[in-house]
């Protein structure tokens, strides 16, 4: 059975989800194209996992509508489950089964054709040929994550939903992982991936930033940065801690962040920020420089904005 052809892998409008009287996801509207890697960012508890679970049929939205791979997210969850690969945030394969047994079980659940071969290929691709009979529970975090990804790709899904797949994984493994994701996207698979890492966000084709159940920004990394209208300065030199304290007290300064020997200062009002910089640049050993704001600056700004503007 093939999914109906449609340009968007995910196309949902106004999805809402409550847990009791907690409004966890508010009016989620999201489009993800085939072949696109879509980054899903936001602080812990912002509703990312709930959103992903609604997209793969694990949770029923309270209202709203839309499709995943052309299947209705409310009525056709069975079809969605068959075509989507979902990787849970927490390792959710069976720790008392071996690597091979886990893959074999998952392959059976999805009715993978030529199962033995598919499992063998997956193990070879993982480079785990010699450890195939090791219990999954004995694997390190990085290996568990790779095994999970292999498991959710066994049935060759057209859409991957990955919930913080690289949390707690070392940089080399993360890079390998992302190379693999890009390879898949190149084959036309859509990937929705939630993450806290800014470098990963920058590797996505497009991004969405969620806070308290609401999407605050969507677009490419550059678009998200541009839409925030932030102005930023960097300063190098000694005594940055004292400078940071002074800057925080100035009007127009929204963020002061120290990165080793560099201080980043950001604000939305260019004139006010400039004035703050002028007033603080008495020490000649400190060198000021106008910079482009980063994604992280933008996200923190979005979050502070939303938190301030929130009716209490």
């Amino acid at each position, binding site marked *: 059975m093939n999914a109906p052809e449609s340009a968007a892998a995910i196309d949902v409008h106004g999805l809402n989800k409550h847990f009791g009287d907690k409004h966890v996801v508010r009016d989620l509207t999201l489009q993800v194209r085939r072949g696109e890697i879509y980054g899903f960012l936001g602080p812990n508890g912002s509703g990312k996992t709930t959103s992903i679970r609604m997209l793969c049929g*694990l949770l029923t939205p309270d209202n709203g509508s839309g499709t995943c791979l052309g299947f209705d997210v409310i009525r056709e969850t069975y079809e969605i*489950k*068959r075509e989507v690969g979902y990787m*849970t945030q927490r*390792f*959710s394969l069976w720790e008392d089964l071996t690597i091979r047994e886990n893959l074999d*079980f998952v392959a059976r659940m*999805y009715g993978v054709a030529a199962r033995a071969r598919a499992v063998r290929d997956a193990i070879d691709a993982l480079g785990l040929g010699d450890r195939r009979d090791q219990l999954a529970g004995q694997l390190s975090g990085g290996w568990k994550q790779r095994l999970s990804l292999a498991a959710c790709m066994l049935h060759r899904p057209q859409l991957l939903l990955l919930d913080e797949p690289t949390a707690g994984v070392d940089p080399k493994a993360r890079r390998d992982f992302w190379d693999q994701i890009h390879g898949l996207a190149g084959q036309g698979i859509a990937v929705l991936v939630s993450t806290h890492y800014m470098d990963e966000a920058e590797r996505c084709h497009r991004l969405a930033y969620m806070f308290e159940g609401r999407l605050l920004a969507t677009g490419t990394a550059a678009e998200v940065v541009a839409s925030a209208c932030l102005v930023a300065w960097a300063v190098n030199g000694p005594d940055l801690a004292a400078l940071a304290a002074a800057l925080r007290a100035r009007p127009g300064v929204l963020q002061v962040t120290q990165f080793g020997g560099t201080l980043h200062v950001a604000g939305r009002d260019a004139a006010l920020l400039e004035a703050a910089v002028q007033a603080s640049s008495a020490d000649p050993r400190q060198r000021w420089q106008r910079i482009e704001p980063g994604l992280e600056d933008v996200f923190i700004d979005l979050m502070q904005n939303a938190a301030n503007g929130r009716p209490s």
Partner: protein
Amino acid sequence: MNGNGVSLSRWIGILVKEFIQLKRDRLTFGMIVGIPVLQLILFGYAINTDPRNLPTAVRDADPGIFTRSFVAALENTGYFRIVSRPATEAEADGLLARGDVQFVVTIPADFTRRLMRGEAPELLVEADATDPTAVSNAVSAVQKIALTALSRDLAGVRARTPTPTPTVDVRVHRRYNPEGVTAYNIVPGVLGTILTMTMVLMTGLAMTRERERGTFENLLSTPALPIEVMTGKIVPYIMIGLLQVTLILLAARWLFHVPMEGNLAVLYAIMLLFIAANLALGITFSSLARNQLQSMQMTFFFFLPSILLSGFMFPFRGMPEWAQTLGNLLPLTHFLVLVRGVMLKGSALPELWVHVWPIAAFMVAVIAIGLRFYRRTLD
């Protein structure tokens, strides 16, 4: 809706997974094999179905040499311990009613006279049959001594009496529980209680364990259908259950020499049904429970009435009607009757049907509830 039906391959996948996990869980597996053997030996030897030295009252309305030697013979059987010699019937009744004695043996006033005349005098043995297993061996012992005990004393007096005639006509009154439950209560009871406990508990934990370990989210995100998951988790335990009953039956045969009057295949068919009913209950518990602890609590909530109201521990007919009604809802109640029927009476299926369908109905109801509450989503 193409491909939305039940998939055999998927079902087998779940089956294989459960078997592997069962194999790896050494403790559980050990319990499954160890519990039946241990409990049967424990119950079989600790619970004495042939108790001796039972307190007995003798109301002797005709003191004399024959009564003396008859009472001596009673005591010599080892079953009776004469603790009281009430003078009146009312006094004797009181002793029995209070449970001070298990038996009242009444020797009538004309005992010696009728014995001398060659008539078999009536001897009344009243038994407190609320604990029927305690009574039956003692009663048969009385009947035996009635044949032999007095023959020596009578040898001179009644020389011409033909030997096979019983010298005394023993009348047994089973008081309080006229039905008198069979003496081989223990084996069907152990079969039933062990199956109830292990089957409900093991499967009760099966689904909640997935939930607690977080693997349930993975299982749910696959296209596996609830009925596939439920039955796929049940079948391995059916085999475990059959292994358990086989162990118990072998032990029953070799350790306790329990007879097997009926058809073994019929017995296995009944046990299979009973196992399936308990497994279905376990799976349903685990779809209702949020965690393993809750599932365990539900199991014990069900287990206790099963033991107390099924007729395993106390005679079923001795319970008030409402308790019998409650007991009739429990599969164990019917299972006990069925197993006794097959093993001891050699009953065949047509006679047993009346106790078969309640177990089947219980199973269907429980599966329906389980499917109703099986969470297809994480909502």
